[in-house]
């Protein structure tokens, strides 16, 4: 596996300079690898992982997960509809799922009103959408691999031990 990609997967907190030190490359080489990964559309971009329960971090105060049932199109299956749906700015992620519904859509909105109007005016009115089931996120316990209330107590380790 590309060594820079491996570092991205396991230590997302490293800067490019730090990745260079760990992998034994120059910074320029790491940047070259990143560029190539972007060109290959493997590495899509950086996103901060924020604790959205903190007011200053809560740019989008309302988050919802929506289960969407669709009528597949002749020839295109679910893809064209899903791609159309994913283009809305409110949609953070969109996945085709196995099981009782077809798409799982993660939505961010500044207010409950805006989230509701996205569902009722934009999503459910798309041709091919059979039904939606919206769940609002109440509280987060883990974000992007980070525990929010870390109770690991690892900070109490001895500084020097045999």
């Amino acid at each position, binding site marked *: 596996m590309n060594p820079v990609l491996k570092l991205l997967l*396991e*230590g997302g*907190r*490293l800067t490019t300079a*730090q990745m260079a*030190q*760990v992998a*034994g490359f120059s910074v320029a080489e790491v940047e070259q690898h990143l560029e190539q990964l972007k060109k290959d559309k493997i590495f899509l971009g950086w996103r901060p992982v924020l604790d959205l329960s903190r007011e200053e971090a809560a740019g989008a105060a309302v988050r919802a997960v929506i289960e969407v049932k669709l009528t597949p199109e002749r020839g295109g299956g679910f893809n064209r509809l899903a791609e159309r749906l994913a283009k809305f700015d409110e949609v953070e992620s969109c996945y085709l799922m196995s099981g009782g519904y077809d798409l799982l859509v993660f939505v961010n909105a500044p207010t409950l009103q805006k989230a509701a109007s996205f569902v009722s005016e934009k999503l459910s009115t798309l041709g091919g959408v059979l039904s939606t089931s919206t769940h609002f996120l109440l509280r987060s316990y883990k974000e992007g691999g980070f525990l929010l209330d870390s109770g*690991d107590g*690892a900070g109490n*380790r*001895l*500084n*020097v*031990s*045999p």
Partner: protein
Amino acid sequence: MSTPSHRWVASHVASLPRSGIRDFFELVAKMKGQDVISLGVGEPDFVTPWHIRKSAITAIEEGKTYYTSNLGMLELRRAVATYVTEHFGVNYRPDDQIIITVGVSEALDLCFRAFCNPGDKVMYHQPCYVSYHPSIALVHGEGVAVPTYAKDNFALTAEALRAAWVPGCRILMLNLPCNPTGGTCDRVQLEAIAAFCREKDLLVLSDEIYSELTFEGTHTSIASLPGMQERTIFLHGFSKAFAMTGWRIGYACGPEPLIDAMMKVHQYAMMCASIIAQEAALEALNNGWEDVCEMRDQYHKRRDLVVRRFNEIGLTCHAPRGSFYAFPSTQGLGMTEKDFAVGLLKEQKVAVVPGTAFGINGTGHVRACFATSYEKLIVACDRIEQFIASNRE
């Protein structure tokens, strides 16, 4: 300072020297709150994997709060037997050839108490873990230190053993890979050591706690060599590979009469290891191998980073083949290991342990543990570079 109460302390305990680690620990403790990066620890920075912690919680919820067999839970001993066969190529009977202990430290103490007569000589390679010499002294034995050298990557050689051997040696203590040097022996080197042990009729105590953290080649247990299982106590535990230091759980495997002798001491001194820790250890053996491999991969990368950076900045460092310790030399810098460690702590707030804490053969070296995050290792290396630059003669 002597007080009236001192007269109650047994003379062989009173004469034990203070641990060099303890001295340094106190120095670092005084700098609390000063952004010290510690490379002075002797444990993984990983928290025990959650599924292992969860199994202990479940054991408590289920009311498993009682004593176990003195030898430890049979189910755990069976799992240990399977693990040791698969990973070390040695077969032990769970019924009478395996004992679960409170860490390898207790297992080692049991060995010395069960096998060392007053005046017996015990050979051990040095630099070494801090407890060997004191543990031997506590049973009125005599330690015979065998030096290992940076030029050999701190592997123990049969030649050094032969040179150090004196009449009265009955036991050889091995710790491969080694804390603090990361040195280990390949199969050929071990075969020569095994031949020496057979020739001199030595019992071998083999602490292989870092064996899963072998980065180059494969780990060979001396117990797996021809004619050695019958004269070897294989010591192992969960602290390092499974990141379970605080659980205090280990085990010893060996010939039945020897395990029985260890059990005699264990049953009176300890009764049994904590059942909660035993339950966690069982989960570790049953489902924890992937975690071990992931952690080993991380340590490997960190080792490469630290060794490369140390050598770049003028701190000569061999690549440790195992463990999570680098043991660079301060000799080329014109300062002693203690001046280096104290100066580095005071000027740049990075803690490493002077090599002499691990015996006189650690002179001219410091131990730097790389079981910490990349970010901290990078900053620590930068600070060491500044320290060396500002103290260059």
